[in-house]
């Protein structure tokens, strides 16, 4: 059972259980699909003690958020809305990783101000600074963005991830992260 739990603990349930542990809430519950495990505190501590600590690193946080979109069901945002396709979750992670690697050392990646799924299945990632906004949208086969600066808008669509990374890197470095 311990091996099984160690495997479980590497996913979302690990994080939920870990948070509960440190919020001193009893009992520690690890949920996986239809199974629920109620663990004694010392058992859980012995498992998580061998696991890496939860990271505040943006890539890790980003992945955690977009992974949660895989849980969405049909109709989650009203009639006709669709869940996020796992391939779009994957593309958004690829984009964030590439962006993080591409940014100049002076502009370390910062968590977006919002990361949300749309009712039609894409993922939207926004960074803001005052009246300036960069809004990225990741689709299944292409991506796009628009920028807003007070009442001025511009947009580009049908971009591959590489071009999106390059455009957003420049916008973030020159307008948002400064």
């Amino acid at each position: 059972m311990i091996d099984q739990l160690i495997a479980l603990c590497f996913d979302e349930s690990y994080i939920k259980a870990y948070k509960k542990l440190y919020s001193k809430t009893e009992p520690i519950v690890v949920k996986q699909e239809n199974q629920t495990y109620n663990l004694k505190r010392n058992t859980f501590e012995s498992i998580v003690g061998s696991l890496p600590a939860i990271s505040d690193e943006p890539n890790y946080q980003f992945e955690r958020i977009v992974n949660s979109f895989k849980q969405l069901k049909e109709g989650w945002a009203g009639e006709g809305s669709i869940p996020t396709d796992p391939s779009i979750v994957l593309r958004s992670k690829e984009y964030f990783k590439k962006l993080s690697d591409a940014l100049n050392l002076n502009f370390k990646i910062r968590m977006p101000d919002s990361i949300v799924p749309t009712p039609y299945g894409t993922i939207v990632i926004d960074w803001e600074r005052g009246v300036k906004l960069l809004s990225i949208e990741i689709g299944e086969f292409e991506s796009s963005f628009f920028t807003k600066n007070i009442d001025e808008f511009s947009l580009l669509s049908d971009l591959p991830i590489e071009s999106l990374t390059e455009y957003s890197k420049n916008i973030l470095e020159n307008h948002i992260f400064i």
Partner: protein
Amino acid sequence: MNNLFIPFKIDSEEKLVRIIFNPLHYSVSKKRFNREAFLPPPGRDDVSMIRLNYSSPNRCKEIADTIKLKDNKHIGYSISDMSKFLNKVLSKPDPFNKVTIRATPLPKHLEIDFFGYFFTLIYNVPEHADMIYPYKPEKNKSNPELRLFVEDIISIFTFCEKETDLNL
């Protein structure tokens, strides 16, 4: 609802309300609407509204109570008026200058036009209207034009937490 007949044409003075859920439609921490409040699902071009002049604040609450969105809670309403909407839309480039709000009493299949008016008693929600976009978003395809339009149209709406704040 006291009117037996309602005009299909929405007057420029009419108030329009959309029911708002949290966290999907509204960010409490940022105190503003999310674009998702006005984005349709794939294959649809309509977003529901209520014509407040032919409804009432209590009726808005009743309608809100019939809507269930998983993991979301009804937290208020967005309100604007038709003249603000028209001013905003008319300044937009094609095709977004064609965005309209039109009366769509529910259920829609009963829609019968009596010289520009409809008989309210045959409808469950006669005060229903739709904001209609010029096209339907495709499944899993990014749509910056539509999102950009919504980003701007949000500015004409005001948040009301309670139905008693919905004033004509």
